[in-house]
């Protein structure tokens, strides 16, 4: 695909600003949500049979507890994926602030993923017309 140098520059800037902005907010939000995960959620769903023994062990400590947070985050949006774990109703035991936080985190991750990787892939595969 042929694009002009100007378009290339603009798209690149959008990509980098998304990356910079995302870097400022996404990791801290993820870490905060992980540390402040409500005990009620953990006691109800972070145990067998929803999570296997091995997972219970390694997802209890930072930094792997981040994965636990991301599982809960994605299940809010993609409940149809939940065939084995049976945690699709976890939103019921989440306090409102936590739910909003997770939704924010997941949506922003999806946006950044599409914009950042989308633009990068597009730009790497296009030619600049002189």
């Amino acid at each position, binding site marked *: 695909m042929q694009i002009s140098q100007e378009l290339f520059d603009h798209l690149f800037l959008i990509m980098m600003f998304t*990356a910079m902005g995302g870097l400022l907010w996404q990791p801290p939000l993820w870490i905060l949500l992980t540390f402040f995960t409500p005990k009620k959620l953990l006691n109800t769903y972070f145990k067998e049979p929803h999570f296997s023994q091995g997972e219970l062990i390694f997802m209890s400590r930072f930094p792997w507890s981040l994965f636990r947070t991301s599982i809960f985050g994605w299940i809010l949006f993609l409940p149809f994926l939940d065939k084995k774990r049976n945690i699709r109703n976890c939103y019921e035991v989440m306090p409102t602030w936590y739910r909003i936080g997770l939704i924010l985190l997941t949506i922003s991750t999806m946006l950044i993923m599409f914009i950042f990787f989308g633009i990068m892939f597009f730009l790497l595969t296009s030619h600049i017309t002189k």
Partner: protein
Amino acid sequence: MVVTDISTPDSVGMCLASDNQSSQSETHLMMSPLKRENLDQYKLYMPTDPKEREAFWAMAWLDDNYNWLSGGLGAGLTTLGVLTHEQNTTLIKTVETLYKQYQMGLISKGQYDYGRRKALSLFSQRLGPLEKLLLKGQTAQQAIQIARSGAVPATEKIAKNLSRLNKLSKLASVGGVVLTGASLGMGCYGIAHTQNRQKKNEILVGTMSSTIAGSILGYALGVLLISTPVGWVTALALGAGSALASYGAGEGAVKLYDMSGAKVDFASMSGVDQICK
């Protein structure tokens, strides 16, 4: 103009002769100063905390065999994290407790040996079929004995990276996502020590892109984790995969930056060049 190789038969002959003549004792003498120097450095850099020391040894070994530290890929730290997590280190602690009991005379040598072998064979089982691959021919028993004795494979590559290894073992003893911190730290270091403005920006663009890519991909892993309960092997593979992908994203961003003519000075715009001096 043709240049011919000037390796005269005489000089070649002399080389070969001197090689043949250098006896064992001569090479020994030649090696000792280097070894002695290394020993002092090791004393300076070997961590004292046993957890850190184990991490130090493991990373030294990883670098030696897989070029992990010099290669720059973060998969190594993830591997280390998985290998040294609770389940496995508990077994090692069991061996330590047994040893203490034996020293205090509470159990006999035979009991200690038996207990040790049992715990370590369980450790090998947990490690699984990858054990031989990861430990490169050494069994878990041998590897742990070496680690316990405080020995470090004293190769040149490791001698060069000693201070880095020391710093990293502090981080590695804490966990796996430390990769992000380490790569940001190394990026800042690179920016501070480059004079060229373009290079500074390239490093910044690359580091930021690979970090955000790592974080995003890490979060996205959650999608995969929902459907399948994950064992340690899968965790290892996933960690390595996302580390590779984020490395690729960093490289891609640098390339795009250069293609865009390197016009924007991100380093001064974001104030990073004030922070990383």
